[in-house]
Every structure is written in structure tokens, then in C-alpha cells.
């Protein structure tokens, strides 16, 4: 059969030289450009399919349009603010944020009829248990032993930490998407919000510190899966090749 592909990073396609690639100038995580825009998505698909009729040798074609302006833009501002009291412990602050966001998160799930929450193994109503697990890891520094819970976790440690973090991230994004205002935040706006003073951002930084303290290659790699690059207070979230080599680990 024939293949045609979408390419997000042109340099990768140039290295691999697939038969047909449509390079699209969209952010990572948006290969069809725009959510809920069937006309634009079809335009991208038609361009990728057209290569099947026009290319006679390995071809990379550039899609000529930027993605249309999305409502969930970089200019997004959160309509709620969480009070930060220095003396308050992370567990109190995190649970308080969750309680404030819970009704909004449920609204989004109701409206969409689906949710990405629960990849860790949690059921849809087990946000409190996910928070308990994260706080347990933060408090004990146990990044290699599964946190005690009635949830049947679907990952080993330390990789579970990455998916606990993602369940929390999903929950927050769902909540923010339902609130009145400028719609859901983009990836960057969302990360800027999370790491700009929320208890969740502080909890993620603490998870990263615990993983760093443990120091094994998988813990350091997991740190890079918990925190997007550019947000870890300790520097590079993903360990450098030399850091991994020092620990006798080589990415194959």
C-alpha cells in the first residue's frame, strides 16, 4: 500500500525521507492544526492525500497556511485565582485548589461526554486518591514504591508519577475549559498558569526534586516526563546525555 504522512518537524522528515510528507507549520500536539474546525482539518488532509496523486519520488511539501487563530490563545487569563498563604502546607493548598476546580471539571466532562482523566488507573471520581498519592510521594520521597491506595495503578514506579501528574493536569485543564472567559488555555498558557504559583505547580516541582534526589536514570527521565522543558526550577527537566552516561545509561 502507499503511505502519506503529516510532518511536524521538517528536519525529521528530511532525515528519514518518507515517500510523501506534508510539513505543517503547527505546534507539536496539533498535527491537523485546529480543534473543532472540520473545514481546516479537511484542508490539511486533502493536501496530504494530494501527494498520492502528484508525487513520483520522495517528496516533502510545505502546507502554506498557519493554523487559524484559536480561541484558547496565548492571551488566556485564568478567571480564578488561588489564595497563596506562605504558611500553608502544600497538602492543604493542593486540596483547596482541587475542591475549587471540581465543579468546573465535572461541567467539562458532562459537556464533552468524555475525559482523558484516569490513565494512571484512577476511576473518574478518584481525583482525591490521585492527590493523596502525589502528596504521599512528595512527603516520603518514595519514588520507586507504588503509593498505598485502593486504586489499582496501571504503571510501575517511577513512571506512574508521570501519569499521576498528567491526570492532575487533565483535571485542571478540564476545569479551566469550563469557566467563563476566554475559553481553554493553550499548552503554553496552561503551563505558565500551572507553574506561575499554583499548588499543583509547586507539587510538580517537589515531585521533580524527589526524582532528582533518588537519582537513578529512570527517575531522572521520569522528571523530564513530569515537567515540560523550561519549567523545572532545577534546570533541564530531561537529563542530559552526559548525566545519563555518568549513571551508566545510554538512550538506545
Amino acid at each position: 500500500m502507499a503511505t502519506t504522512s503529516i510532518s511536524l518537524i521538517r528536519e525529521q522528515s528530511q532525515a528519514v525521507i518518507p515517500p510523501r510528507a506534508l510539513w505543517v507549520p503547527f505546534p507539536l500536539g496539533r498535527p491537523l492544526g485546529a480543534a473543532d474546525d472540520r473545514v481546516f482539518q479537511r484542508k490539511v488532509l486533502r493536501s496530504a492525500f494530494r501527494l498520492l496523486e502528484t508525487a513520483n519520488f520522495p517528496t516533502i511539501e510545505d502546507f502554506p497556511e498557519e493554523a487559524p487563530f484559536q480561541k484558547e490563545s496565548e492571551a488566556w487569563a485564568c478567571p480564578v485565582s488561588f489564595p497563596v498563604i506562605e504558611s500553608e502546607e502544600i497538602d492543604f493548598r493542593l486540596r483547596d485548589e482541587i475542591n475549587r476546580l471540581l465543579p468546573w471539571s465535572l461541567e467539562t466532562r458532562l459537556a464533552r461526554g468524555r475525559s482523558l482523566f484516569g490513565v494512571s488507573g484512577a476511576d473518574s471520581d478518584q481525583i482525591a486518591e490521585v492527590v493523596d498519592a502525589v502528596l504521599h510521594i512528595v512527603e516520603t520521597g518514595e519514588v520507586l514504591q507504588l503509593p498505598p491506595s485502593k486504586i489499582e495503578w496501571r504503571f510501575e514506579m517511577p513512571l506512574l508519577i508521570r501519569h499521576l501528574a498528567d491526570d492532575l493536569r487533565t483535571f485542571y485543564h478540564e476545569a479551566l475549559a469550563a469557566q467563563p472567559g476566554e475559553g481553554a488555555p493553550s499548552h503554553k498558557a496552561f503551563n505558565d498558569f500551572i507553574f506561575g504559583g499554583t499548588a499543583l505547580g509547586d507539587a510538580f516541582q517537589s515531585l521533580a526534586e524527589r526524582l532528582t534526589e533518588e537519582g537513578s536514570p529512570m527517575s531522572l527521565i521520569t522528571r523530564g516526563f513530569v515537567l515540560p522543558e523550561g519549567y523545572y526550577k532545577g534546570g533541564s527537566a530531561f537529563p542530559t546525555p552526559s548525566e545519563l552516561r555518568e549513571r551508566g545509561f545510554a538512550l538506545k
Partner: protein
Amino acid sequence: MVRLSDLHEVEQEHMRLRISEWKPVEKAPWITPKPLKEARVAIISTAGLHRRTDTPFVFGAVDYRLIPGDVDFKDVVVSHVSANFDRTGFQQDPNIWFPLDRLREMQSSGEIGGVAKWHYSFMGAQPNHVALQAAGEEVGRLLAADEVDIALLIPV
């Protein structure tokens, strides 16, 4: 827009290193498919998608998950490990990664001949392409058995 130079410097360095190690895919006979309006299309995604009941992907996974052509997006979740790409669009509209609804529409309008019974999902962030060869060849055989004419490869 995204080019390597638009990414965070750590990601840039990581990707440049990886790209420098990659080799072009082995040349195969050039295949010209049947006309699009007669062709059956399958999606191959590297977004780490799977049904909620499936075993999730782990870091470095070289296996794949089946996505039925009649899947309900309510049942689809993602266990891709990377924190460095935007998931917000997918939360809003799964078609931005996995455009099954768009293919169904294009089938209804006669633009494509049909939509495959099965589609396939791999875990991305896999720097070692050779490690995927066995699973890739297996999926190729499955696609052929499903009489797929066009495989549409979509990254994340």
C-alpha cells in the same frame, strides 16, 4: 508554527542529536495507489492513543494498539510519556490527532473510497526506528489483509 528553532533549547538539542543518528528509510518500490475516491484509508498514529481498557504504553514501547474504525472517542485515552507537546487540542477535539470523523465525512462525500476497519497507534518519542521494525511489518501485513490502499501517518 514549529521548527526545531522554535522549541526549548533542551528539546532542540535532544532532537538534533536524535536526527543526526537517523538514516533514511530503506528504499522500496514506488507505489502509486488506486484513485483516492476508490481507496480505503487507515490512520497510523504515534500519539500513544489507546482504548481505556487497553494496556497503556510505557516509555520505549515498541508495540502497538488497535483502534477500531467505529471507535467512540469516549473510549480513547492517551499514555504518551512526553510532557512537551500540546494535549489541549486533543482534549477539545480528538480529530486533531486522529481524524476519523473527517475520514468518515470524506467517505460519505465520495472523496475517499472507504475507511479501514482497523487503525493503529504507536507510542512516539521512540528514537530507535529499527526497534519498531517488527511491529511495523506486522501492522503492514494487517493493513494489507484489511485491504487498505493508503496508510495515513500522523505524528503528534
